[in-house]
């Protein structure tokens, strides 16, 4: 059976004309990146994102969708190419600061955040004697500007989490927090038919529906904001949300009646105060949820490793 590397080598031969064309488009020569190096970079990206048995058409589609010029710039920066750094700074310095300002909404914090990102982008840590730049993880699936915004957002959240440990008592009190955390309450036994029905109905939802529900009901985002994130119109989200809530409710009641509850019992159970049930909301809120406080664990993205 052919190995993945073997398949990649075969495909690489088949895709050679396309790779050459992309190489010429990418201005890689400007940063002294050879065609072979370029080919290795995009092949590694395809191997990362495509399943082992992906056909050649998928490889072609992926290659063609990459932001090749930005990818080359990022990789040249990661390799320490001086001209690439100059180009990067000219093109992205202001954008980085603007994005940081949009995230933090405060100029000095924004400068601090952008500064910390520069350090990561330049690469201070070393692996096997080599400087590791965060730009080496950019793979061109989205725009470099968008990627930088995402990295900034991630860094901001991580900074927020780590700073939580150094917040003064006064600040905590002002923020309405208690001096000491009370011991976690023992969950009360809940009706398994209810929780089972809810879990089943939620699990049956398509990813996008669940995402919309979470953004609206857990993260308290506005319809307009959800719409801008998902690139649809606000009214689409509004209609969809209403339909979703109705359908979800119906599905849960159906599942509960299917499990032996009467309709009235099922409807009453839906309105039960969550505090009376064995759902540990406090724990889940501090672990998973959303708007402050952030979880204290640092986010490490797939493929980046520990930093």
């Amino acid at each position, binding site marked *: 059976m052919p190995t993945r590397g073997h398949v990649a080598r075969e495909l690489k031969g088949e895709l050679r004309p*396309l790779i050459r064309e*992309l190489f010429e488009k990418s201005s890689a020569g400007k940063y002294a990146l050879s065609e072979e190096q370029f080919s290795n970079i995009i092949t590694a990206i395809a191997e990362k*994102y495509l399943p082992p048995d992906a056909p050649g*058409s*998928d490889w*072609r*589609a992926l290659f*063609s*969708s990459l932001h090749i010029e930005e990818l080359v710039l990022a990789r040249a920066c990661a390799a320490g190419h001086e001209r690439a750094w100059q180009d990067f700074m000219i093109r992205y310095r202001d954008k980085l600061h603007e994005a940081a300002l*949009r*995230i933090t909404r405060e100029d000095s914090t924004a400068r601090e955040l952008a500064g910390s990102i520069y350090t990561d982008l330049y690469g201070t840590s070393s692996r096997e004697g080599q400087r590791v730049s965060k730009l080496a993880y950019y*793979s061109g*699936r*989205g*725009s470099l500007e*968008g*990627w930088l*915004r*995402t990295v*900034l957002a991630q860094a901001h*959240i991580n900074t927020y989490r780590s700073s939580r440990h150094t917040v003064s008592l006064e600040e905590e009190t002002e923020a309405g927090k208690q001096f000491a955390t009370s011991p976690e309450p023992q969950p009360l036994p809940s009706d398994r038919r*209810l*929780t089972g029905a809810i*879990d089943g109905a939620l699990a049956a939802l398509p*990813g*996008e529906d*669940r*995402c919309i*529900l979470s*953004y609206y*009901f857990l*993260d*308290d*985002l*506005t319809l*307009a*904001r959800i719409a801008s*994130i998902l690139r*649809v*119109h606000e009214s*689409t989200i509004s209609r*969809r*949300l209403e339909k979703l809530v109705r359908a979800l*409710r119906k599905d849960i009641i159906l599942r509960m009646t299917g499990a032996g509850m009467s309709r009235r019992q099922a409807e009453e159970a*839906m309105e039960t*105060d*969550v505090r009376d049930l064995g759902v540990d*909301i406090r724990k*889940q809120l501090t672990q*998973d*949820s*959303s*708007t402050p406080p*952030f*979880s204290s664990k640092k*986010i490490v*993205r*797939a*493929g*980046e490793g520990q930093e």
Partner: protein
Amino acid sequence: MQLPKIVAARLQGSILPEHPDPDLLTAFAESTLLGKEREQVLSHLGACAECRQILALATPELATQVNPTARRETKWSWWQAPVLRWGALAACVLVVATAVLMHEGNQSSRTENTQIAMQKGPAPVLPAAPPRPETKEQAQNQAPPARTQSSRSVAPGMKRVPAPAAGAVPTSGFNASASADANAVNRMPKSETVETQAEAVAPQAPAGDQPRARDSMALAKAAPVFTPRPSMETAASTIGGAANLTDFRPPTWRLSDDGLPERSFTSGQWEKVQVDHKNGFRALAALGMEVWIGGAAGLLYHSQDMGLNWTRLIPVTGSSTLTDDITTIEFADHLHGKVMTSAGQTWVTSDAGKTWETP
């Protein structure tokens, strides 16, 4: 809209798979992920508050910034107070009634100063409209609640052109919508055909343009839409698999069992294409890079770029709108085509869906 608390609580508890990397999140935010990858990211986002947060922070806001914590606080405008609304209406009625009475009184009394009164003319009839808004926010709050064409969305990245004067015939252009003022359609000279209303669906704006799009969102309500016709090179390079344009062949299309369009660039490899998060389409026609799909209740979409961007078409003729189920779509070329409905009607266009006739 209320979600039972217990359901919201269960929504949070999930086992999280591996986080998608920033590249995938960025590609998702820029709507460049297709098919399975997009589904995977969406599924993850539904369960992972951290990634939702990152995405929300990283995505530039297109609309006016709203404090997330104030979500459920309804925006208040003085015009929304019922007393003021009804009061203004009553005042308008009073003015109209007074004007009518004065006019009649002047005619019946036939006094010596009749001629002078007539020279002044009848008192103006004031329309029952709210006072002129002082801010953009007030203007938005006073927008009519009815969903008219003028309230349809114009997505970011789309070029805007000034709204034509009321009653003017809209300019040509495949996706040019009718005048922003819905009444303009009624004021047009009567003819067999009128302009089709068009609604742009989820075009992809370059990230750098989004802050500008935020400002232009306010203009969306009054501006017609114009989508520049994408070049084959743009569409091909975006969709992928077609970098060598001399070898490029448009995809084959079909409808899936659940009524979603599917395209194939290579034989046997089908991928589903999302159209405004809708499914249940029943009819499809494809011609080169152009694709049309239709479904229940007159749902009709058109793509000029092999399914990358879709434009909603709402065929209207005279006073009737296509609301029956679309069963067949046929296009001889990118201009001339017809749509057949479950009610046996045939709607014909000879200008790429801009205007329609029912012979």
